[in-house]
């Protein structure tokens, strides 16, 4: 038995060593640096953190990021759940799933040209709407970003919902139908309560995916986009270009804490699922 225990460890060790070298040990260094002065390296206490919180760009970026998540997440979840429910009633489900997943495969870089043509002042969208909105240079840019995020992640979430929905045993529905429950009642009393554990996972995954929307934003609008879509990711990027190691270190630690909090919540929900 002891020997087998060691075998398991040997299987994991190479990967673990790599993770240590490239992620863990340097991150420990980042934590150390977050308490150090940028020049000279003396102990700075909470100075860097205070700096970050007092930073105007940080407040703007954090506010925008929160606002973005607050708008996108409910929209995406609702839309994808609706589609997943509808997909259960169609024979061509596979074909539609392919279509919804397609954006996931399309590199952000390939979409840059299209986004420029679509959202320009003289672009296609204004042509269709018959309006003259300057999408990228006014607060409307926020809408463009929301659309990009939903376009990209819709299929991913639909698949997640479908996985959750098919995990609900079919005989519950049959029993309810025999008792005369309509489809609205079935949805309210069976689907919703049973999909809750999956829903939680989906929320967390979508939240973490929302950080990747930076790609579209950055490629279309560059490092300093319109103010409404200046996200935390832009800020980190610009700190990196300026080599503001002190601010970046403090910022990374804060962001890591926030993300770790969500992950722990997710882990709890997985554990509960395993008990069931």
């Amino acid at each position, binding site marked *: 038995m002891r020997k*087998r*225990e060691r*075998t*398991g460890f*040997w*299987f994991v060790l190479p*990967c673990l060593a*790599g*993770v240590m*070298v*490239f*992620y863990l040990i*340097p991150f420990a*260094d*980042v934590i150390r640096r977050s308490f150090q002065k940028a020049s000279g390296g003396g102990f700075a206490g909470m100075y860097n953190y205070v700096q970050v919180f007092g930073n105007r760009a940080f407040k703007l970026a954090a506010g925008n990021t929160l606002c973005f998540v607050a708008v996108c997440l409910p929209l995406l979840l609702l839309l994808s759940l609706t*589609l997943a429910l*509808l*997909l259960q009633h*169609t024979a061509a489900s596979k*074909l*539609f799933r*392919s*279509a*919804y*997943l*397609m*954006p996931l*495969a399309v*590199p*952000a*870089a*390939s979409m840059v*040209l*299209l986004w*420029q*043509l679509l959202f*320009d002042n*003289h*672009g296609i969208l204004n*042509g269709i709407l018959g309006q003259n909105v300057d999408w990228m240079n006014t607060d409307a840019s926020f809408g463009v970003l929301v659309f990009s995020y939903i*376009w990209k992640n819709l299929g991913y979430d639909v698949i*997640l919902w*479908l*996985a*959750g929905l098919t*995990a609900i045993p079919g005989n519950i529905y049959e029993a309810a139908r025999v008792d005369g429950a309509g489809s609205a009642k079935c949805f309210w009393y069976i689907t919703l309560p049973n999909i809750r554990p*999956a829903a939680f996972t989906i929320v967390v995954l979508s939240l973490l995916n929302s*950080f990747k929307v*930076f*790609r579209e934003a950055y490629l279309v609008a560059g490092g300093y986009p319109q103010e409404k879509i200046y996200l935390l990711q832009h800020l*980190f*990027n610009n700190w*990196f270009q300026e080599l503001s190691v002190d601010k970046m*270190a403090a910022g*990374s630690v804060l962001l*890591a804490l926030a*993300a770790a909090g969500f*992950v722990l919540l*997710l882990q709890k929900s997985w554990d509960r699922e*395993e008990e069931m």
Partner: protein
Amino acid sequence: MKKGLITLVLAVVAAIAVSPVCFLLAGMLMDNQELTECLAPVFSDGEGFVRWHIIPRYPTLQNLVELLLDAPEFFQMFWNSVKITVCILGGQLVFGMTAAWGLARYQFRGKKVVYMLFIVLMMMPFQVTMLSEYLVLDSLRLMDTLSAVILPGIFSTFPVFIMYRFFCSIPKSIIEAARIDGAGEFRIFLSMGLPLGSAGILSSLVLSFLECWNMIERPMLFLKSKELWPLSLFLPQIKAGRAGFAFCASLMAVLPAIFVFLSGQDYLEQGIASAAAKE
């Protein structure tokens, strides 16, 4: 009636989802004159709006041929993308697969801690680890080499998680039977784990491929020299005057991803779903 309505709704959303790819396709087939005409409102600040023809007036492969025969920089970057993707995927197969097997099939001290660690890392946005990655790459003198992009990618823990979920679902009795027959532990991994977990391995490969092919942040920060750039950084740099060229290049970047996506769609779906529901 109700069925028809459902199909209509689904089809409209599907059309919106796929339209950008069709748009690229149409752009690739247009000749330069038609492109200039269509795009004039944006690029030469003319009047009116961009109009788009779903079906080009005179379909031609002229721009595509030009790209394939007369654009060495495109091939350079395409090749860079291929190198990065293949190396990362290969590395994940070696390191990630063994780790997933070890976590899924063995008990050892500290296993729970390692597992938690991998999950937390997998969920971290890139912005959290970017400074630490930079620090280690800089101290290893790897900045501005392809390794700067490849090495951290290999030790991404997301594929480990996907394969772990699939390895866990292999019935214990099969493994025990092999053990009783006297197979060594590594032999069991190779001849039982790999074939029985192949769905999980393919799922993680498909997901990783799409991720690597689309990589933006790492190359942008860690690669200074243009000749090392992957395609995903090159495309946005193409100047507006070369719209035809840009369309072809964009489409050529999409094609491998679409190909992997279509041939691996089942695995992709299984991989995504593995996070939401227990197998």
